[in-house]
């Protein structure tokens, strides 16, 4: 043995090895180890191999535990002649300074930065090709998100049809989108988060709606007695329908009778539809979604109930398809479950009207000149005055109230 005390250190195998995992020891403290005898096993991300004893000697200390990784040059064990005292061995261990064999450049430790663990955060895989293999430059993608623009709607002019920042800007200019203003900072503790792409889309569309559509509102109340009686009868017969199912059904029928509200305003054209594709607002953690009950005018209460429950569940699970949320002809927003008396809603363009439904609440009603205590539902209809005049909206709302107060026909 070269010296009375000999350090066994983590060897460097291969070229880029920086640390090794001790997987097993083949010797115990106190044993005399022959040169080249297998001493321990070390695993790297390339191989598992035995560390052979570099010299002959008596194993006095094992300092590396099984299952632990140690950098190249770390002290794994100490050999010492029997004449060397335990205290001397301890002093050797305490005084051992491993070599810095790392590959980091000289001033790798950035002043003030916390010490980073060896394995830094993995870079998040980047979705390379968007939907349908669409190519989008990273800056363009970011800008589109900022503006709440769906990049799949943009025609890319770059190489291989790649969407560039310029393409997004051109698109945005056409759409009139503007980046959201930065909020002022305050002394209060706050958390800043970028809007999700979905939230950005919602924000952009609602702002556009509120700013550009001349909304007016009409309000009517529904005496809920007949509705409640009908629901009770259905429940007794073993079927059930929610209040919302009645409202969607009645809305669809009223829309068919007053098609001016079952319409889209597209540029200077009004498109009216034969069937009522009723969008039903669903609150999800990510934001408001409006899945569509197609041709609700052709569906019975039970079918509407099944369809809305399925859509709402999938909306909350984030599993709606693009078709299921695009192309509605009218929207029903029902916040009745929150106990609200009434509210009004913002039209979801290119639709021309939206119905806001309050809660069915106890109220003093006037029936045949008598004040009675019953239940009342308040409906608020928002219309786009550019295409729906007040009388037309009123006709629709009147018909809707009639249907809901005579629910046996639904």
């Amino acid at each position, binding site marked *: 043995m070269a010296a009375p005390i000999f350090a066994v250190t983590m060897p460097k*195998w291969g070229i880029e090895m920086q640390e090794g995992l001790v997987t097993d020891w083949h010797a115990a403290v106190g044993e005399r180890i022959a040169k080249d005898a297998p001493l321990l096993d070390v695993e790297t991300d390339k191989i598992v*191999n035995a560390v052979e004893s570099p*010299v002959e000697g008596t194993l006095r200390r094992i300092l590396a535990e099984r299952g632990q990784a140690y*950098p190249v040059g770390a002290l794994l064990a100490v050999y010492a002649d029997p004449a060397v005292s335990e205290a001397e061995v301890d002093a050797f261990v305490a005084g051992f300074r491993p070599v810095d*064999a790392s590959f980091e450049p*000289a001033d790798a430790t950035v002043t003030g930065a916390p010490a980073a663990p060896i394995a830094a955060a993995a870079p998040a895989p980047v979705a390379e090709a968007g939907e349908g293999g669409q190519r989008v430059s990273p800056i363009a993608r970011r800008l589109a998100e900022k503006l709440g623009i769906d990049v799949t709607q943009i025609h890319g002019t770059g190489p291989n049809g790649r969407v560039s920042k310029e393409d997004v800007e051109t698109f945005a200019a056409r759409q009139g989108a503007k980046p959201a203003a930065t909020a002022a900072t305050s002394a209060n503790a706050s958390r800043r988060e970028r809007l999700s792409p979905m939230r950005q889309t919602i924000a952009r569309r609602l702002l556009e709606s509120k700013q550009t559509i001349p909304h007016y509102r009409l309000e009517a109340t529904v005496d809920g007695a007949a509705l409640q009686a009908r629901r009770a009868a259905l429940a007794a017969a073993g079927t059930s329908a929610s209040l919302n199912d009645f409202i969607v059904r009645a809305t669809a029928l009223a829309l068919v009778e007053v098609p001016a509200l079952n319409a889209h305003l597209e540029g200077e054209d009004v498109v009216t539809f034969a069937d009522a594709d009723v969008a039903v607002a669903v609150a999800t953690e990510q934001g408001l979604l409006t899945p569509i009950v197609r041709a609700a005018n052709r569906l019975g209460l039970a079918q509407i109930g099944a369809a809305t429950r399925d859509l709402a569940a999938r909306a909350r699970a984030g599993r709606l398809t693009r078709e299921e949320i695009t192309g509605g002809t009218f929207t029903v927003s029902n916040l009745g479950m929150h106990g609200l008396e009434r509210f009004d809603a913002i039209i979801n363009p290119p639709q021309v009207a939206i119905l806001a439904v309050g809660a069915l609440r106890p109220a003093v009603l006037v029936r045949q000149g008598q004040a009675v205590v019953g239940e009342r539902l308040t409906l608020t209809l928002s219309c786009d005055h550019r295409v729906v005049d007040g009388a037309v909206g009123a006709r629709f709302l009147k018909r809707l109230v009639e249907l809901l107060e005579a629910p046996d026909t639904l």
Partner: protein
Amino acid sequence: MTLTREALARAYRQMKTIREFEERLHLEIQTGEIPGFTHLYAGQEAVAVGVCATLGDRDYIVSTHRGHGHCIAKGCDVAGMMKEIYGRRDGLCKGKGGSMHIADVTKGMLGANAIVGGGPPIAVGAAIACKLRGDGTVSVAFGGDGSCNQGTVFEALNLAVVLQVPTIFVFENNGYSEHTGVDYAVGSKDIAGRARAFGMPAERCDGSDFHAVHAAMQRALEHARGGRGPAAIEAVTTRFYGHFEGDPQLYRARDEVRRQRESMDCLKRFRDSAAAHGLSASELDALDAAVLADIDAAVAGAKASPPPAEAELTTDVYSSY
């Protein structure tokens, strides 16, 4: 030409120095203190020393990535080499070259070389200088069996013949080009034969036998110094360690090195015939002790030597700029 007792003792001491230098490096590398990528020459000492024992400081050698033995045999300062391998300021190349790039032009050592086949063309150029000087000096191109498959080596062999310059190509056939066996990688399995095909005398010798290498070198020198152009030697030898330190050597049978350390150890074989050359075992023992002391001192010196100053990073790129 038979060697004197003194020359033989010197040769033994050099071989032992190379051996202990490498054995010690094998231990020291495990501490992690030595940077980089080190290829040990242990096992091949008789080739370097057998060849270089015939050369003077004005003769040139070019070496390989496995160059420590050539450096020591050509007279490079062992302490300076050790410092270089540790990457220290006072190393032979100021810590800028490292194990694979040790050079000392004052000793005719034109550099170890990390490019397989990088050296032989350089040796031909040095031999052009020797020929022009007309002083009887020669150049030696050391290379491994792996290098004989490089196009640069073929070009150098041919150019030396065309120019009739005094280069001796020494192919150290240690059985492996990196991890691949020579029987697989050298198609003809006859490296000397290849050199011969270029138009120069070439012979194969026992690379574990100092005397055999020395004798082959004497014949090659006689040819080259006689103005008859290059010559080649294929010395069959072995390496006692991996391609580089840390090589797990899975391509070698587990006991191959152990057997070779028994049968192909040039130091044992030298000792076995030492008495016949007038060298006693006790004389050799004394040399062994002196060598160990030298190596201890070299390692201690290297560890104590400071690292290069950071300002050294940008010096020595040009003579002037």
